[in-house]
Structure formats: structure tokens, C-alpha cells
């Protein structure tokens, strides 16, 4: 007998411990993707429990089910359209009152809902005791106690969910919110119209649809109207909605949605009074004590800056060790392949294209792992919200929300998830503005370029130079933000109503899953975009294979060999060694010259030459131009391209690269100009795709492309020409 699949959706407020519960239930069996059409992260997992396949879906965390933010729309649509067998509403026991607001809305939808009363232990330590039986009875909903971070009650919860799914469904009318008589009358009136004219297109149930219409919910209104052919019926409905809204406005002197929110809280207050007993106000609020320090007037900012500094230190100094191991691993593979395979085009591709290209990028995996480890630590402890709290005033100066700080901070890791995290912003203008300025946050893929260039040309002061580049990136984003805010993206900011959740000890499992998710995105990029990019770059620089050299190198090498051969017989052993090393040096020099010539005459070289006139005024030669062009595929490729173009031996380590760069005639000034260009110019392909998806417009994407490239050129021009003028 095949097992039945039961779909279970997890709903709940942000910070209710929903994700922890989800991680505990599904463990490593998670699939992370996106909700169709939008880029809100969708997590699901299948587990076998109690004789069934349980498909668990983690809905976005929301406070409500109004069509306020994309998260709320996604959560609501899933429940309405996909009809999960059971919805588990995770209720933070220490925030019962607000959690019940979402719960009452779930009850109104008439889905099969079950409450997980989470973290009751924490509530109890704060003197809050909840009578679960009473709550269950009052709302006619099963209630299960869980402690997510200790994995307690999870099995019980799933058992109850399975039982609930298998029970034949009965709509219990009793325990929903009862509004005041006037509102109930208005709901009834709308309900009549709906049942009469729109019986086929009512989402959910007529009562819920009427409530939403009364609240002026345009999504529900459009869904209902879309099923109706006649315009007369549509205007009839709109008229009826307006009439009922006016009726309530006149009675209560306020908008219906406000009155109804108020009444829901009134209903909730009644429930809370019956189920909660608060013991004497003996509570040690650890969070509050932590905040006395972390958001302190004097200490808040220094500590914040220290955390950010520590994060970068950790990422880059600790990350240097595994980086070395990977580097030697790659060069070991490269040597082994070199010895194993006979000379051929395939070997060339494998060695100089794939191993060299991917190898020079994979070394940054440790950096990325550590960076995302830190970021998820900030998120899971609750510090991220404090960072937004501290930064809001500054962000507000650019016309942005404190929450915009989060995508911008994430931008230092990778612009793609950063742009995706701009979803947390409610106002579309805030979102677009944040998305447009995020690429100026120098992502970790650009760092290797700085490390190589600054390392080669600025020696001791490399750290300062890199710091300055990051800083200028931040300043540019602020400037861009201000300019756009006062021109094309004029408008009011979204309200800054944000929860400061209690601090929590992060769970290793959650942090690991989080970190792994992000790193997997990076590895995936390695697997396809970067692999393809490296092969393309290799092909462009290897072909055409029949290059006409300016001289016959093989003949010259043979000549050198013959010349030294003639000297050997008359030399003593010590002289032979000296002669041999002289000979090898001469041959190496010739081979280098040949390599340089073949690169110059390859397709890649021709492409670089073609665009060189554009880059010369900013001090970048054709090799640099080629590296920059290839960087559009992914910024990581800039380094691997430079590796292929500048480095003669199969070596990809940083030392050899620095030496080759210095030998190539690049100066400190042109390196600086190149670094700034890399900071500002076109974001990588994946970021461009993310911008396109998140702004929902090709126009904004094009704007971002043109704006950043122009700005990059202008700034590099000023640096290079200014520097030359000053005599550098």
C-alpha cells in the first residue's frame, strides 16, 4: 500500500522559532527554492513519520495575512490555493497576544489549523503560564506544547497533525472572531451579494471574502471580479463595497480595517484573560540587560563597529589557513594531471582552463563559509535587528529604512542573496533603491582581485588600500541613494515598525544549515557559471591555434641548446651547472615571450585590443580589459583570467601572480584604477539577473548596468589621470 502524503504548512510570526522547528523536523532533508514568481525563499522537506510521507512547507514569517508585504501574500496564497492538509501555527508563548492575531486570521480562513505553543519554558521563566486546554477549547483548535530548540514535543505535534489531517473535515463556525453588530451586518450584506452574483469565484469562504472586501483588500476583490464577465456586476459589487465601508466609517468614524483590527485584538484580549495567568512580576529579562550594553548610547556604535571588524578579521585571517590547504591541493592536482596525461588539447583545457580557473576561485570557499557563518550568527541571535535599530537614523538620511542596512551588509558577502534579502522591505521604492545601491557594497568575489592587485603593488599598505576601497563603495552607495531619492525615487519612507526579538542562543544546527545554504549557492555558481566562464575564457585565449609568430621560437630554442651543447665539453662540472642554469633561463625567457605573443594574437587578445581605447585613459591595458569583460560572467573570473593572461607557468598561487603582474608593466596607479573599476562597474551576471527579478523591470536592470559602468569609468579616469597629473 502506498503511503499517503500529507502536506503540512508551518505558519507563524517572525522570531517565533518557526525555522528552528522546521530544521528539527526535516533535518538535512530540505529543499530550498523560491516561491513561484517571487524570490521569497521557499523551504520544504519530506519526512516519513507515523506511517505517512509528511511534506513540510515553511511559510514566510508574518504578523498578519493582509496583502501588506510579499511574504504575507505568499503565505496567504499558499493556504488558499494549495490547500495544505494541515496548517501548524507556531505561537510564541511569551508573545501570546500578538501571535494570536495571526491565529485568528488563520481561523477565519477555515483551514485545518493546529497550534504549536512554542517556547512555553521561556514564557514560564518570565512568569507567564498558559492554560493550553482552555485555549484549545476556546478557539476549537488542537494545541501542542513544543520547545523548538530542545526538539521537545515535535513528535507529538506531528502526530496531532496527522490525526487532524485524517479526521473528516468539519467547519466549526463557533470560535471565530465575532465583530460588533454593525460590522457583522455589513459582512452579511456583502456575503449576500457574493453568494448571489459570484458564487463560483469566491476565494476561501464567503464570510472571509466579505471581511477582506470590507477591509479594502484589492487582491481578493480582483480575484472575485476576474470570474465575472459582466461589467454591470463588477460595478455593482464595487458599489456595495463602498456603501458598506461608508456605513462603517460613519458609525465608527474610522476606516473599517482599523476598526476590525481593533476588534480582533479585543477578541484576543478576552481569550488571553482566560488562558494566561501571570505570576508576580518577578522577571529577569536577560535580553533587556544585554540591550543595556549593545544598544547603549555610548557603547552601541563602538560595539557594532567592533562586531563588523571582528567579522572581517575572522573571515580573512582565519580563512587564510584553509585557503592555503586548498591552494596546495589544487596545485597538487595540477601537477599530478601534468604528469599523467600526454600533451593534447584536452589536457590543455583541463589544466589551463578548468583546474586553473575553478582552482583560483574555490580557494575563497573558506572565506565565504566564515562570512556567512558570522552573518547567520547575527541573524539567529537577534543582533541583526539591533544593527538596524542603531543604523536607522543614518540609513534614514539616505532616505532608507534601517532594514536596508541588512541587504547592504549582506552585500559584502554576495550581492545575490543581498538583493534577495531586500524583500524584507515593505515599500517598493525602498526596495528598488536598496537593490540599486547594494552592488556598491564590495562583495567577497571582488576581494580576491583586490588582494592580488593590492598585494602586488602596495605591499605593506595593501590592507589600508583595500579598506579604502570598501569605504568608497559605501560612500558611493550613500551618494547614489541620496541622489536617486531626491530625483527618480521620490517618496515617503515605509514605517519603521520593527520587532526587536529577544536575544537567543543560536543553535549550531540552524547556523550550520543557514551557512550551508548560502555556501551551496556559491558552489553551484562554481559548478556552472564559473566553470563555463573559465572554459570560454580558456577557449578564447587558446584559439585560433594556428598563430603566425613574429619569429620561430622553436628554432631559436634549438639554437640556444646547440650553443650551450658546444660549450659543455670544454667546461668543468661546476661550470656545467652554471651554464645549464643560464641556458634554462634563456629558454624560459623565450617561452614567456612566445606565450605573451600567442595570448596577444588569440581571440581574447583581439577582443581586448578592440576595447583597449576605452580602457587606456583609465590606465588599463588590453589584458586588464579582457579580465574585466570576463568578470561579467562572475567577478571571481577576473582573477582566473588574469591568472591565464599574465602568469606563464601553470601556477595559480598569489605569489606567482603578483610577480607576473609587476613584470607586466602595470603600475601601482593603474592597479588602483583597476581596483576601483572592479568595485563599481557592472555587477556580475547573477546579480544582474537578481536585479531584474527583484525590481521586476528590465528598465531598472538597464539603469543599474549603465549607471554603474559610467560611474566606474568616470571615477577610474579621475584617479588615473589625477594621479598622473600629480606625478605618480
Amino acid at each position: 500500500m502506498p503511503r499517503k502524503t500529507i502536506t503540512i504548512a508551518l505558519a507563524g510570526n517572525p522570531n517565533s522559532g518557526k525555522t528552528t522547528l522546521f530544521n528539527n523536523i526535516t533535518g538535512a532533508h530540505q529543499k530550498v527554492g523560491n516561491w513561484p514568481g517571487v524570490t521569497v525563499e521557499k523551504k520544504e522537506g519530506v519526512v516519513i513519520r507515523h506511517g505517512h510521507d509528511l511534506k513540510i512547507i515553511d511559510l514566510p514569517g508574518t504578523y498578519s495575512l493582509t496583502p501588506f508585504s510579499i511574504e504575507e501574500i505568499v503565505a496567504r496564497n499558499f493556504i488558499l490555493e494549495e490547500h495544505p492538509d494541515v496548517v501548524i501555527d507556531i505561537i510564541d508563548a511569551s508573545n501570546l497576544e500578538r501571535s494570536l492575531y495571526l491565529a485568528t486570521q488563520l481561523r477565519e480562513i477555515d483551514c485545518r489549523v493546529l497550534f504549536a505553543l512554542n517556547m512555553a519554558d521561556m514564557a514560564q521563566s518570565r512568569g507567564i503560564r498558559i492554560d493550553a486546554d482552555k485555549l484549545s477549547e476556546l478557539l476549537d483548535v488542537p494545541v501542542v506544547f513544543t520547545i523548538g530548540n530542545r526538539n521537545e514535543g515535535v513528535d507529538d505535534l506531528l502526530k496531532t497533525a496527522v490525526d487532524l489531517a485524517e479526521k473528516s473535515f468539519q467547519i466549526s463556525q463557533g470560535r471565530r472572531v465575532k465583530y460588533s453588530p454593525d460590522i457583522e451586518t455589513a459582512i452579511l450584506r456583502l456575503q449576500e451579494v457574493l453568494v448571489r452574483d459570484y458564487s463560483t469565484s469566491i476565494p476561501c469562504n464567503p464570510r472571509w471574502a466579505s471581511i477582506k472586501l470590507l477591509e479594502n483588500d484589492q487582491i481578493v476583490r480582483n480575484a472575485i471580479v476576474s470570474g465575472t464577465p459582466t461589467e454591470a456586476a463588477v460595478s455593482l459589487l464595487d458599489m456595495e463595497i463602498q456603501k458598506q465601508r461608508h456605513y462603517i466609517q460613519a458609525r465608527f468614524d474610522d476606516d473599517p480595517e482599523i476598526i476590525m483590527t481593533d476588534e480582533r485584538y479585543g477578541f484576543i484580549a478576552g481569550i488571553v484573560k482566560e488562558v494566561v495567568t501571570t505570576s508576580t512580576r518577578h522577571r529577569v529579562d536577560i535580553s533587556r540587560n544585554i540591550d543595556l550594553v549593545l544598544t547603549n548610547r555610548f557603547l552601541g556604535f563602538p560595539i557594532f563597529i567592533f562586531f563588523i571588524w571582528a567579522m572581517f578579521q575572522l573571515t580573512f585571517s582565519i580563512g587564510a589557513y584553509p585557503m592555503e590547504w586548498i591552494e596546495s591541493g589544487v596545485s597538487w592536482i595540477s601537477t599530478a594531471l601534468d604528469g599523467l596525461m600526454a600533451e593534447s588539447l584536452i589536457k590543455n583545457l583541463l589544466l589551463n582552463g578548468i583546474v586553473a580557473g575553478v582552482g583560483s576561485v574555490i580557494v575563497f570557499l573558506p572565506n565565504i563559509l566564515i562570512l556567512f557563518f558570522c552573518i547567520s550568527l547575527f541573524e539567529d541571535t537577534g543582533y541583526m535587528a539591533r544593527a538596524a535599530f542603531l543604523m536607522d537614523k543614518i540609513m534614514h538620511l539616505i532616505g532608507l529604512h534601517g532594514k536596508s542596512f541588512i541587504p547592504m551588509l549582506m552585500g559584502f558577502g554576495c550581492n545575490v542573496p543581498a538583493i534577495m534579502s531586500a524583500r524584507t522591505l515593505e515599500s517598493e521604492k525602498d526596495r528598488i533603491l536598496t537593490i540599486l545601491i547594494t552592488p556598491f557594497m564590495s562583495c567577497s568575489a571582488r576581494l580576491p582581485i583586490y588582494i592580488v592587485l593590492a598585494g602586488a603593488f602596495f605591499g605593506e599598505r595593501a590592507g589600508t588600500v583595500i579598506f579604502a576601497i570598501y569605504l568608497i563603495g559605501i560612500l558611493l552607495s550613500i551618494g547614489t541613494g541620496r541622489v536617486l531619492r531626491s530625483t527618480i525615487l521620490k517618496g515617503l519612507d515605509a514605517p519603521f515598525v520593527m520587532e526587536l526579538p529577544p536575544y537567543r542562543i543560536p543553535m549550531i544546527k540552524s547556523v550550520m544549515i543557514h551557512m550551508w545554504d548560502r555556501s551551496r549557492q556559491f558552489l553551484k555558481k562554481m559548478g556552472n557559471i564559473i566553470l563555463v566562464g573559465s572554459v570560454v575564457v580558456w577557449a578564447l585565449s587558446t584559439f585560433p591555434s594556428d598563430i603566425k609568430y613574429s619569429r620561430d621560437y622553436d628554432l631559436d630554442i634549438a639554437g640556444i641548446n646547440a650553443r650551450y651543447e658546444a660549450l659543455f665539453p670544454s667546461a668543468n662540472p661546476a661550470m656545467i651547472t652554471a651554464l645549464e642554469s643560464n641556458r634554462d633561463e634563456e629558454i624560459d625567457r623565450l617561452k614567456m615571450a612566445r606565450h605573451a605573443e600567442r595570448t596577444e594574437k588569440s581571440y581574447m587578445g583581439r577582443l581586448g585590443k578592440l576595447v583597449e581605447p576605452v580602457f587606456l585613459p583609465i590606465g588599463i591595458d588590453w589584458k586588464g580589459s579582457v579580465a574585466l569583460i570576463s568578470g561579467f560572467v562572475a567577478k571571481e573570473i577576473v582573477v582566473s583570467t588574469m591568472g591565464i593572461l599574465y602568469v606563464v607557468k601553470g601556477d595559480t598561487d598569489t605569489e606567482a601572480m603578483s610577480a607576473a603582474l609587476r613584470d607586466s608593466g602595470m603600475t601601482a596607479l593603474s592597479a588602483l584604477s583597476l581596483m576601483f573599476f572592479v568595485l563599481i562597474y557592472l555587477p556580475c551576471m547573477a546579480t544582474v539577473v537578481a536585479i531584474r527579478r527583484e525590481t521586476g523591470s528590465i528598465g531598472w536592470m538597464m539603469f543599474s548596468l549603465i549607471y554603474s559602468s559610467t560611474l566606474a569609468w568616470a571615477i577610474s579616469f579621475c584617479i588615473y589621470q589625477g594621479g598622473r597629473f600629480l606625478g605618480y
Partner: protein
Amino acid sequence: MNATSPDLRLSQLREGQSARILRVGGSSVLRRRIFEMGIVKGAEITVEKYAPLRDPLEIVVKGYHLSLRVEEAAQIMVERVPQG
């Protein structure tokens, strides 16, 4: 002392002071957002602290902590309650 002054705004409270919400003004989006987070008429609210740059401010309502901008808090009319 339990005197109520009708024109007190939430943004006029100092750190540690408590008040009861009378009404909320401002745009419809702001009002709804505020209501949904539990800042409803009659709810008791305490100003926990102001951010280091004096904006936003942190409030405690129904046992949890929220942040609001000063300009938003200025839309919330309150009456002082005696401190316990």
C-alpha cells in the same frame, strides 16, 4: 498623580516612562501596521530607550520590544499612567 494631558505624543515621553494609547494618526498604511503589531487603543506602552542617535526609539508593548521612528511615534497620542 494621574492627570491626563490631552496632547501628549508618544515621542514626548522620556526613557522609562509609560503611557496608555489614546489614538493613532498618520497614513493608513502606518496606522494599520501599528495596529497589527498590537499597538491598539488602550494598550499600555513603555519607552524603553532611544537609539544612540536619538532616533528611532524602542518601546515595550504587550511584553515585546518594537522600534519606531520618532516621527511615527509623534503620530501616537497617549496619556500618562502612574508608574508602578
